[in-house]
């Protein structure tokens, strides 16, 4: 097949619809190549995001054939057996225009989950030692690789069902700090992430784990937060 039939969602906050384009199919073509071709050669009014093009920044995340992916790291051959592609903005986020979503809420929730390091030591103190083979460090080694691309957030049905839910990325970030021996804000953070808008709303769908392009499992971290919260509640510290 030498031509792709590509349907792209066009519109804004008030709504929109899919528009069809025909794009020449090429060897080793990525979905980002397809979007770029449409915007440069067919329809300059198309709005979309990208930056690094090499799978490091997460800016190009969008919904490809119903599934959230990084378009720069998705080969057309991988997702398009019958020559048809459907592109839409990331789910669970407000649309700015076409394939561009407003990421404010995603990062607001990150802040609400207190995903921010607070150290104990100042510049005149000695270094804190973090043993790389300590149990705590090993538990969060994989989780610190998150680059905040929102693929997990966009794949989570609980985010869709519960508007207050902090979401997998924010909770994963909180988890990495809960196992960081240098962090001094763990008690308050636990209070921020426990509750029906936090870790207790996770029902282990595992969609986040399934879709994360960096193979992180937010579900694991959220399970850890649940255990931490119960321990704190039983000790009267929550």
């Amino acid at each position: 097949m030498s031509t792709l039939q590509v349907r792209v969602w066009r519109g804004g906050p008030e709504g929109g619809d899919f528009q069809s384009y025909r794009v020449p199919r090429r060897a080793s073509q990525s979905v980002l190549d397809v979007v770029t071709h449409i915007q440069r050669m067919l329809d300059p009014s198309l709005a979309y995001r990208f930056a690094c093009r090499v799978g490091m920044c997460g800016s190009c995340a969008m919904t490809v054939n119903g599934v959230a992916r990084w378009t720069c790291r998705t080969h057309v051959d991988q997702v398009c057996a019958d020559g048809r592609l459907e592109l839409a903005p990331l789910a669970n986020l407000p649309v700015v225009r076409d394939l561009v979503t407003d990421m404010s809420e995603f990062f607001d929730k990150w802040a609400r989950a207190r995903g921010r390091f607070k150290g104990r030591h100042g510049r005149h103190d000695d270094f804190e030692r973090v043993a790389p083979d300590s149990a705590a460090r090993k538990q969060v080694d994989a989780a610190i690789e998150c680059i905040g691309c929102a693929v997990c957030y966009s794949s989570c049905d609980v985010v869709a069902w519960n508007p207050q839910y902090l979401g997998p990325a924010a909770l994963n970030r909180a988890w990495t700090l809960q196992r960081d021996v240098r962090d001094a804000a763990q008690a308050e953070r636990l209070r921020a992430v426990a509750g029906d808008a936090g870790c207790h709303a996770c029902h282990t769908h595992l969609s986040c784990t399934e879709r994360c392009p960096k193979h992180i499992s937010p579900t694991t971290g959220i399970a850890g937060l649940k255990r931490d919260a119960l321990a704190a509640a039983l000790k009267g510290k929550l």
Partner: protein
Amino acid sequence: MKPSLRARSHPGYWAFLVHRVSGVLLALYLPAHFWVLGLALREPARLDAFLRWTDQPLVRFGEWGLVLLLAAHFTGGLRLLALEFLPWRNWQKSLAALAAGVALAFALAFALAL
């Protein structure tokens, strides 16, 4: 926009759905179950009549369905306890399949016993 149905097409999500639907159905069944058994307390004749009704093939099929629901919810629950309390391993994602298999085994045992 909400996540599409295609985004939900993976074993973890199906396991969740089976667990939730079976739980809701069992929650609706339980009060009826208790009420019928409570008839043994005061109205044995009514209980006898009810139990004769349960001999019908359609009702027996329903009983088998209930055992399947209970087995499904039970095995799915064990999977959840493993995911939430045991150290994370990749094989835990296959627990969904294992849970389904064990649930079916229970249901078959019941069906063969009937």
